[in-house]
């Protein structure tokens, strides 16, 4: 069974992931794929302990690339979380099984344009989104299961242009 959610969310593990998506999809494992978190033993431990009852692993993009296909065959469901579209693009370029992405939270930062209350993009984000779409990826904007999913391109025509 394994992958039940690939999510782009700058908060990584947090309430919406654990409570809303977690109760809906009941994952046994969560991968946090983030070179920055993986480089900090302290941050790694923080995330490992953040989801009681769920096996949390923190991996670099390179480590996730190597282990992604094997994990897809593992019993039980798994979530994969990245903090931004660029990381999602890097993973999608490296493995064929990372094509369907839930865009769950890309919050405001200076220089980013608002698409909705929880998705803001800049040119680097749009560039990564274009590459992802070129690879055949789907980018579905939906913060929690109870809200309606919409395509990222429907919110931002500049991605296609």
């Amino acid at each position, binding site marked *: 069974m394994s992958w039940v959610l690939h999510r782009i969310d*700058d*908060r*990584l*593990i*947090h*309430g919406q992931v*654990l*409570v809303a998506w977690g109760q809906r999809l009941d994952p046994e494992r969560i991968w946090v794929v983030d070179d920055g978190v993986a480089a900090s033993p*302290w*941050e790694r431990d*923080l*995330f490992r302990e*953040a*989801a*009681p009852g769920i096996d949390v692993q923190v991996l670099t993009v390179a480590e996730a690339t190597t282990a992604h296909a094997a994990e897809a065959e593992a019993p039980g469901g798994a979530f994969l979380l990245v*903090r931004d579209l660029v990381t999602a693009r890097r993973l999608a370029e490296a493995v064929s099984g990372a094509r369907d992405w839930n865009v769950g*939270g*890309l*919050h*405001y*930062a200076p220089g980013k344009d608002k698409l909705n*209350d*929880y998705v803001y993009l800049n040119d680097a984000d749009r560039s990564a989104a274009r590459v992802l779409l070129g690879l055949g990826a789907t980018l579905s904007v939906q913060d929690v299961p109870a809200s309606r999913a919409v395509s990222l391109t429907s919110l931002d025509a500049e991605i296609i242009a």
Partner: protein
Amino acid sequence: MSADGEESATPASRVPALIVTHADLAQALVRAAESVVGPFTDVTLLSNLSLSRDDLERAIEAHVQSWPNGGLLFTDFWGGSCHTCGASAARRHGEVAIVTGVNLPLLLDYLHNRDRFPVGELAERLQLKGRDSIRVQRGTPA
């Protein structure tokens, strides 16, 4: 924000607190606590609404770095962004203890005891108080 208080000067031993929650739960908790004990100070509030992980961490750090002798961070639940960002922000600033699962009885106990215990001891006490406040009363069919 700090609740506008009318009490006397803050004792030097007082443990300050920051409540970080989803939406406006922190404000509601303070309003509820004030309705029980009256106005109080030295409790600041923060919502994670619309904040990225980095911005939330910075916002929490801006509060806790003003505490010369540490303090308490109350968050709504373990594993939420308020907790994990709080942990990241707090580790650079002395003795800051995080108590997750903040509820009204826990907050009231904090207000009664924040001048009496040091940070660590107060955090342990509040964990027990918060847990103990959750009870089940089962009705008996008439």
